[in-house]
């Protein structure tokens, strides 16, 4: 019988998925994101050249049959580096987003539930953090603790969880005012049971959508850090780093930056489109309701 219930739930999930893919934005967005993920996973197996082999004889070659995206100032194949350039970024931002959703969701729900003075204090602290320019704070952290992924993941996760706190808190406020929470209270369920069974399933959607949005922002932030030289250290290929390295030569060797720019932008657009379609499929976007 439990299975039956799960079937109902799975049906709901499949309904949401169908709804996502029946929208052009969802179809395109998800295709882009999935393609990026697949490439990131299998790129070491399919790339034609070694990403770090420096060859001064073939510096800054324009796109040709041999090097379809050309080569950079150190004679490395841009195609190879572009295919592999998303690996670190995706890894760091994916886990960063998980951390952001976890702590942001937890604190947001907690604040929404307890309310009162504790809520006030926590929210003011969050506001204060929001006021600090993130890039300044990130630079500080990176300078002190180094640029390893073990530092970047929690640091980015922490900074991008603040927005999730607000969303989670608002969603919690929305849900706890509804009668089914009151009904559970009147039945005498424990607080834990109310939060787990009644509240979480109903704030989950909003938090997930917000998390997806944050992912794309975090990706941009991570690439910016790399661009500034505080993210991935060479010779590891990374889009931000590649753009930074090729920037000075853009006027005569445009090919060294075009590919990473397109790759980065397409991933961000893909994530945004997917998050959008996701929100609409879940019915969080209220303007898009069916006419009847």
């Amino acid at each position, binding site marked *: 019988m439990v299975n039956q*219930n799960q079937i*109902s*739930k799975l049906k709901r999930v499949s309904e949401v998925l169908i709804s996502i893919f029946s929208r052009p934005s969802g179809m395109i967005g998800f295709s882009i994101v999935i393609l990026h993920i697949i490439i990131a996973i299998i790129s070491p197996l399919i790339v034609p050249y070694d990403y770090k082999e420096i060859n001064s004889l073939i510096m800054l070659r324009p796109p040709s049959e041999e090097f379809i995206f050309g080569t950079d100032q150190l004679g490395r194949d841009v195609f190879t580096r572009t295919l592999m350039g998303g690996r670190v970024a995706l890894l760091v931002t994916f886990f960063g987003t998980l951390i952001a959703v976890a702590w942001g969701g937890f604190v947001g729900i907690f604040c929404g539930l307890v309310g009162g003075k504790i809520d006030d204090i926590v929210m003011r602290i969050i506001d204060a953090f929001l006021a600090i320019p993130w890039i300044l704070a990130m630079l500080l952290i990176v300078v002190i603790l180094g640029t390893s992924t073990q530092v970047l993941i929690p640091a980015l996760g922490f900074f991008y969880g603040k927005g999730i706190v607000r969303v989670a808190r608002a969603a919690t406020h929305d849900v706890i005012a*509804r*009668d*089914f929470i009151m009904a559970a209270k*009147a039945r*005498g369920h424990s607080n834990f049971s109310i939060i787990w069974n009644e509240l979480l399933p109903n704030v989950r959607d909003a938090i997930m959508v917000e998390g997806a949005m944050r992912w794309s922002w975090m990706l941009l932030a991570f690439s910016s850090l790399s661009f500034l030289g505080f993210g991935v250290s060479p010779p590891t290929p990374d889009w931000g780093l590649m753009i930074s390295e090729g920037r000075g030569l853009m006027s005569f060797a445009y090919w060294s930056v075009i590919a990473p720019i397109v790759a980065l932008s397409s991933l961000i657009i893909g994530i945004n489109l997917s998050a959008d379609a996701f929100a609409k499929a879940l019915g969080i976007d209220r303007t898009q309701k069916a*006419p*009847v």
Partner: protein
Amino acid sequence: MSDKIQTIENLSIGFKSQNGREVSILKDISTHINKGETVGIVGESGSGKSTLALAMMGYTKQGLYTISGQCLFKSNNLLNMTDRDLEKIRGKEIAMIPQNAGQSLTPNLKIGYQIEETLKLHSTINTNDRQLKITELLHKVRLPSPNIIAQRYPHELSGGQQQRVAIAMALAGSPELLLLDEPTTGLDVTTQAHVLELLNEIAKDTDTSMVYVSHDLGAIAQVSDRVIVMYAGEIVLDGDVRDVLSVPIHPYAHGLLNSIPKLSLPGLPEAMPGTPPQLEKNIKGCSFFERCDFATDKCKNSKPELFIPMNKKMKVRCFWHNKLSEKQRKPKYDSNSAHKTKNLDEVLKLDKISITYSKQSIIDQLLNRFSEKNITVKDIEIEINKGETIALVGESGSGKSTILKSIAGLLSTKNGSINFKKTISLSSDVRNRTNSQLRAIQLIFQNPDESLNPSHTVEEILSQPLKLYFQLSGDKLKENIIDLLKKVRLTENYLYRFPRQLSGGEKQRIAVARAFAAKPDIILCDEVTSALDVSVQAAVLKLLQDLKNDMGTTYIFVSHDLAVVRAISDKVAVLYQGRLCEFGPSSEVYKFPSHPYTEVLLGAVLEPNPDLKPVLTAEDRVEESPPEIGCSFQSRCPRVLGEKCFTETPPWQFSKKGNAIRCHIKIENLFKQQTSKN
């Protein structure tokens, strides 16, 4: 004919469904509105009545479009006109009064300014005369001191006053056609009666045509000359209000009328079986076929036309209308007198309960003093016996839901105690109650959309109380859940559905089942039927009554609808501003002598009979907080004695038949005054 102000011809409106099929909401509607006529459009939710009213203004909701037909206003097809042309007509020649005036008035602009805006657009009055006109308009809608009202913001007015302002704005352009979309739904009964009276007067004075859309046949009966009954996007009956309401010759209209609880007829109304057909479904025959008692194969296979039968003055869409006109409209009412006077075990006693929402000042807290100010509910004393249904009645702000919440332990009381089964004193905080105390009292909420968790299946919803109170699991749990579903007349098929896959009535049944899962002694019903359509309401009331007879449960039933209360309750407590006014057996409360407030309430109840007009004795005014001394009803009471009413708390008086009235007027005098007048 030249006196037709609006003609609708073969109008169909619909939308494209996700799989690209055309789904119509209105199906081939043809009708007309005469000059100076008030037409009531009645139907349940989803019948297309609002869509029709909007189409009369040349508007279709987003996502909808006109499939065929036209809507002629003075020989112009509104549905073909450009927005610019429509702007000239809307507000000036056709005006609309929305359901919720509080939301349709701009909150940051003064009333006078908002009316002036309409005047600027739709009249040629010059600036100097506009102020005069505003005063005149506000006066016309019977607002006291129009000049002061014009200087106020919308939130400073009561719901009834806001609705009046909306009417004044609609009248500003001197329209020829007024569309009213449920204009009194959501207002208190007395306010509603006043607004309807005003509309009647306006119709008489200005010779404006009106289209009154409502689900409430009582309201329709008061204002309309003609009634159109809609079902599943079609007109099924169209005729003079008296003819339609006295001999409804369409089975749907017949059933609808029977499912309304009436003050004049105690007992439960008759429920209509089934639900309206789904929009997407293609129906070959009559759309009411599935729910009709008279249906034959002919009805299934061919669609009846709207026609005027011989010797009749109304149009009807039914093959068997003759059967209905022969059938005496004498509904067979279930008598609920059978279960009276059983064992009178006291199950719950509210002993001088007072509740306040406002925080106490620090000084009061330090001195452990109870501030007399801002008490929402004061000194409520009610004894409830096992197996009784007690109704708490009152208008909004009377504290009826507040009392219910504190019985459930969701709101702590400041004074007094709640005694359960004589010996157990219930804590007013749910966390301090034992498991068995919690189990004994269950709640059913007003709106099942809100009270059922949207991400749980029916099975999960029903398993919660069973797991919590009886620690059931596995097959035992499932057995119990199916048993519960059967009790509320649903089948096993519902187990794995989500609330959004159920109709309103089905959802409320699940909510009822959840309450009964705990095998409670007392069930608190908070306006359980007011979010439902009348035919569904009748079915839910019947279900509650049946379950009570089977299980001997006690209900505490909160409602603003006196007719519903009359149908289901054994005892009634009338509340005003958190103070008890009258308490007694329901058969007595609904008879004189009554507390003056009960009298006002009863007078304002609308019956679906155009010849029974409401009696309006008290002013419709909203009081912000109850008076600190004297009688709570002092400022609105039509029978004020004098100084005494304002300074002394009235005493309880008991009539011979057992109802208690809290009034300074001697009970005999009250009876004399109330009966002699009529």
